[in-house]
């Protein structure tokens, strides 16, 4: 459980701490879209774990390819002078994130609520 969090911190520090690494503003939106795609993949992975059909290969390939394709689409859209490409991609990804998040939320709340009910029944017996 702690290993991924550690990896997150390490990865963050590896880029954030060295002063030499900077990103010019034109590439910022590509990174932003890639980050959103990455979050989407992670939320999707959590959902698939809950559903019990998690596959590490699909997860890893999904993460990298989604991020890459999101950035590529943005590039393509910008090259074709389509407006609000980043917004469109982000909207699509965020919709997926909310979908999956809703699923997870329902699952977590159901479990907590169920447990709470059980313990509540035990602690507050009918007089």
């Amino acid at each position: 459980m702690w290993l991924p969090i550690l990896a997150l911190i390490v990865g963050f520090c590896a880029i954030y701490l060295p002063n030499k690494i900077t990103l010019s503003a034109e590439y910022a939106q590509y990174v932003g879209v890639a980050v959103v795609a990455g979050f989407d993949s992670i939320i999707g992975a959590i959902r698939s774990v809950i559903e019990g059909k998690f596959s590490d290969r699909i997860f890893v390939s999904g993460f990298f390819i989604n991020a890459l394709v999101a950035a590529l689409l943005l590039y393509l859209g910008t090259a074709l002078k389509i407006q609000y490409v980043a917004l469109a991609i982000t909207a699509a990804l965020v919709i997926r994130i909310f979908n999956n998040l809703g699923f997870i939320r329902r699952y977590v709340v159901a479990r907590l609520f169920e447990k709470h009910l059980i313990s509540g029944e035990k602690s507050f017996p009918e007089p």
Partner: protein
Amino acid sequence: MMRMHVPLPKAQPWMLPVTIVCLALGMLVAFMLKVSAPKKFDPTTMTRDQLVALYADKVSAHEGLLAEYEKLREKYDRMVDSATTDQKLRAELQKAIDDLRVRAGSTAVTGPGIVAIIDDTKLAMESPADINANPLLTHDVDLLQVVNELRAAGAEAISINDQRVAGTSAIRCVGPAIKINDHPVSAPFVVRAIGKPDVLYGAINMPFGILDQLRQMSTRVEVSKREKLAIPAVAVLPSIEVGRPELTAPASSKGGE
């Protein structure tokens, strides 16, 4: 927390990929924060408040730079000062060393002065064998007295027959010859002295002085002032073997920083 350890073995398969992905995600997020936004500077679209803030910023930055300039300027001045002081000090030291070398006789010297030629009287050679010629000859003591007189008159460098008479020089009678710096010299003795020519001339020709006495012994003496004289260095300065200088800071060297 106890519950977390239970599903761990079960959750192991997804641990590695999630770790990899988290690493990548952390890097991406960090990249986003590292965006150096070179905002286009366009004062025409700025509001009055922004412009005022910008102006205040620039003014304070300008003041900071001015203060820095002042500081650097001061530092520069101080460095230039100390450099010139060093130069002055060095010139003073060089002068002191040169003076000491003249005094020690370790260097040849040129300057105005006098030349005194002292020759034995012809009487000594012409005299019959029964006459004691000894008082008629020029002796080491006579030369010592000449040197003494010249030094008293402020001679800065003295030589006798091209032998420098320095502080370490001895003038000794060795049989028929006189040895100066362990180098035999004989009449006629050419005494050169660098100093103020008039003073030296007056001092050495003092009535009842050494030259006066020599003249009374019929010794031939010629003294002349010279505009320019050259006096050689002592050929071999004896080394200091047992004496140790007791070094004390000279008062004049405090003039530095």
